């Protein structure tokens, strides 16, 4: 890795550390949230928003913006933390997460929060919408790119495979999906519930370019996002750890939406202090 790439990855690592701290505070306020998935997806969101994607936070509706859709909408605390840092709204607003009448609902609402492209929450909705946005770019000959982040358990929803089949058929080069492959769904491990492996081969069979990588490795994420396109939609199978960054949360099924106690909040912040 050259020094420039090193610098980019190091910068993203620091932003990711600060984002996880923001997530802890965001969830601590209402004592609600999905910390496990927030932490597994953090490095993916940070890499996209603070290096890869083209957007204008001061002009959220700019037609040329890259589209980002968080299909796993329950990880809104991570998304909101990133959007606030990106300048879509004041970080002060994070303190209202899930408070009565706050724009920061438990699942994102594009009509209330700048930077949100689609109201997600029910699983299996993000990829079809992203496919539509990518098709729109081909018809209008726009050069924006479309990114969608999917949970791995979410891939048990059949609508994803309807969309995957169609994206492969249309050879949607402007579309990149990222699977947050933390191997845990709400109640158990994915492979003990309705197994997904071999996941990369499934996507390839649907006409996608599949890249398997460490979803916490910013340099690897940058390489994968920036690799030359080969005339197909691209999926990154991002191997991640649910709860990544805090030892007692990491890779434990009970932390899907468990909220850390005040004592655990202090411990988590201590670990994230670096």
């Amino acid at each position, binding site marked *: 890795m050259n020094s420039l790439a090193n610098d980019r990855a190091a910068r993203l690592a620091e932003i990711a550390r600060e984002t996880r701290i923001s997530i802890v505070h965001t969830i601590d306020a209402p004592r609600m949230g999905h910390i496990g998935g927030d932490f597994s997806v953090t490095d993916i969101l940070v890499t996209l928003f603070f290096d890869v994607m083209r957007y204008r936070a001061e002009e959220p509706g700019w037609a040329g913006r890259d589209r980002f859709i968080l299909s796993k909408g329950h990880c809104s605390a991570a998304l909101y933390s990133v959007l606030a840092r990106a300048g879509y709204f004041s970080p002060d607003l994070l303190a209202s997460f899930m408070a009565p009448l706050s724009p920061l609902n438990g699942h994102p609402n594009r009509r209330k929060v700048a930077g949100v*492209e*689609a*109201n997600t929450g029910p699983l299996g*909705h993000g990829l*079809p919408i992203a*496919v539509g946005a990518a098709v729109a770019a081909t018809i209008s000959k726009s050069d924006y790119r479309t990114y969608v982040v999917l949970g791995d358990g979410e891939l048990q929803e059949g609508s994803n495979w*309807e969309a995957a*089949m169609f994206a492969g058929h249309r050879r949607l080069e402007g579309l990149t999906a990222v699977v947050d492959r933390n191997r845990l769904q709400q109640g158990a491990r994915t492979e003990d519930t309705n197994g997904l492996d071999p996941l990369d081969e499934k996507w390839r069979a649907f006409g996608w370019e599949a890249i398997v990588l460490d979803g916490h490795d910013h340099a690897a994420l940058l390489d994968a996002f920036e690799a030359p396109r080969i005339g197909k939609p691209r999926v990154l199978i991002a191997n991640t750890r649910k709860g990544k960054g805090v030892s007692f949360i990491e890779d434990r099924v009970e932390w899907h939406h468990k909220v850390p106690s005040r004592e655990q909040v202090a411990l988590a912040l201590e670990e994230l202090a670096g």
Partner: protein
Amino acid sequence: MNQISVSHAGAPETFDCRVAFAETMIALARENPRIVAVCNDSVGSSNMGGFQKEFPDRLINVGIAEQNMVGVAAGLANGGFVPFVCCAGPFLTGRALEQIKADIAYNHYGVVLCGQSPGLSYGELGPTHHSIEDFAWMRALTDITILNPADPKQTRDAVRWAAQADRPIYMRVGRFKVPAVTPEDAAFEPGRALLLRDGSDVTLIATGVLVSRALAAAERLAARGVSARVLNMMTIAPLDQAAVLAAARETRGIVTAEEAIVTGGLGAAVAETVVQHHPARMRILGVPHFAPTGSAAFLLDHFGLNADGLEKAALELMA
């Protein structure tokens, strides 16, 4: 008051509204490059072959995948287009109901959901292919405008209005042939009932296929000395409450008639309004349960969704 064209045989000429729909879509697409169509292998049944031929890049056929179809339409709207989703009504509203709720209504994307061959159109194919629940399902979703054009003119006007409305819309596109019932000079006013015949004794509120039958019933009632008001309620949601309440106040009862299940549709919407604001006697005509085997024409008669049934219901209210 109606300018109904009459064929040489003397019976009113009838029309398949899909023709007016397809012609208007092509005309609109010529004017507006943002108009696109989204289909689920339904190019033929939606009569969109001409559109596809002229605008191959702007007809997106996702194959037999209705959930993806509706999500893709939301994404196309995100990308700046005005998608018209063309799909048989039962599969559009049933299979993709959560996508319609979350991706279209809650997101408030300007997508026009076109329920093709709605109601009992697919008669003999049976209840799996009937779209009689669509009004009830769509009414339960806030923010969706529900249109049910009664004839080719209303179909043309509805398509043109929907293209610029920039909001979630569900509209039926009729397959069952209907006579023209809308005066050529009638203004197109979504959300407003269209008064087709004034009357002071009883009100017939009909939608879609049932409008011409309500007019026929009013003729029969007139012969009996009963003055029937006929409202074409093209817009199921939002309901024209003022017209409904005027009918409740000014006439002795209301008969509603729709090619839809009787729970949750037009009749239910009218009842919700009058029961809270001006209780009135009512009869709700529609489809009471899964239909038996039969053509659309047979089934409409079977369920009393014809001039006879409307006349009888009106006379019951007058008794």
